[in-house]
């Protein structure tokens, strides 16, 4: 290839006036081994260009990417969770008329009454116990009054002691 031609092309190339064909020529020239010494510094540039062109996108193209689908599913999870929570809060309030004794079966009613009676017995005994406790309370009160009086005695004792010393 004529060197003059290449130099001309380079000039045009730098002014961005070359056609694609001419650029291909230039590339071919600079990628070959026979590059004139004073043009050597263009070499890495063209090498770089042809190298960069070889880079490819290797990753497989995944179109229905799992990411978006998964996030969508998780979004529905949260919706479901909220619905469940709301149901949990509101369902117990729906049948708000309280159940009466008549709503249960005969067996259950009997059981209920039995336990009621048993509890009554326990409470009665508790009450009698309470009366006994009241007596104790009174005794405690009397003791306290007795103690107060004893205090008087002790005060009296100290005054008599003082008198005796004098």
């Amino acid at each position, binding site marked *: 290839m004529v060197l003059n031609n290449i130099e001309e092309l380079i000039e045009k190339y*730098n002014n961005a006036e070359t056609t694609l064909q001419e650029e291909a020529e230039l590339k071919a020239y600079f990628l070959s081994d026979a590059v004139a010494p004073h043009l050597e*510094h263009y070499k*890495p540039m063209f090498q770089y260009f042809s190298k960069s*062109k070889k880079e*490819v*996108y290797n990753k497989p*193209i995944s179109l229905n*990417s799992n990411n978006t689908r998964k996030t969508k599913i998780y979004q529905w999870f949260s919706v479901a969770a909220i619905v469940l929570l709301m149901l949990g809060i509101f369902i117990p309030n729906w049948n708000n008329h309280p159940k009466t004794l008549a709503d249960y079966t005969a067996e259950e009613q009997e059981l209920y009454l039995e336990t009621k009676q048993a509890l009554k017995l326990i409470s009665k005994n508790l009450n009698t116990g309470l009366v006994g406790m009241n007596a104790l309370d009174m005794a405690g009160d009397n003791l306290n009054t007795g103690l107060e009086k004893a205090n008087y005695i002790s005060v009296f004792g100290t005054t008599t002691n003082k008198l005796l010393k004098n």
Partner: protein
Amino acid sequence: MNQSDFVTIVMPFKDKVFRLAKRLLVSKDEAEDATQEILMKLWHNKKKIGDYKNVEAFSMTMTKNFCLDRLKSKQAQNLKIVHSNYTDNQASLQSQVETKDSIDWVTKIMEDLPEQQKIIVQLRDIEAYDFSEIAKILDMNETAVRVNLSRARKTIREKLTHTHQHGIK
């Protein structure tokens, strides 16, 4: 349109999308994410794909806008700068190291270019697009594209000449 139809449409230019993304975002991972994103966007709008006159040019514009947005966004603040590994099976280690070195220089010079010029150099010198196509992709007129390209090429040349001579003398 089913998936395989879509893939056949996308196949020819997915690498170009990836390379443009990588040119702008530098990191390979970022570029891969961006490519995936672009393809997903195309797939979601697959019904409209027939309306586009030039799907490739359209996707390149999308890529450009997407990457510039990424660069502006805060997410890109912790962007890693990772150079790709240039694997070449050349004979001597010496020449291998040398070429790798000078090619790295070009990479660095390219990184320093303004975004617009980066894109234009990428589209013209690497992907070999026509000026009219580049003008369409970037929504500029052809003269402006030429001016920008000329500037970019001259910058690269100047810096390369500088480092090259510096290396020798």
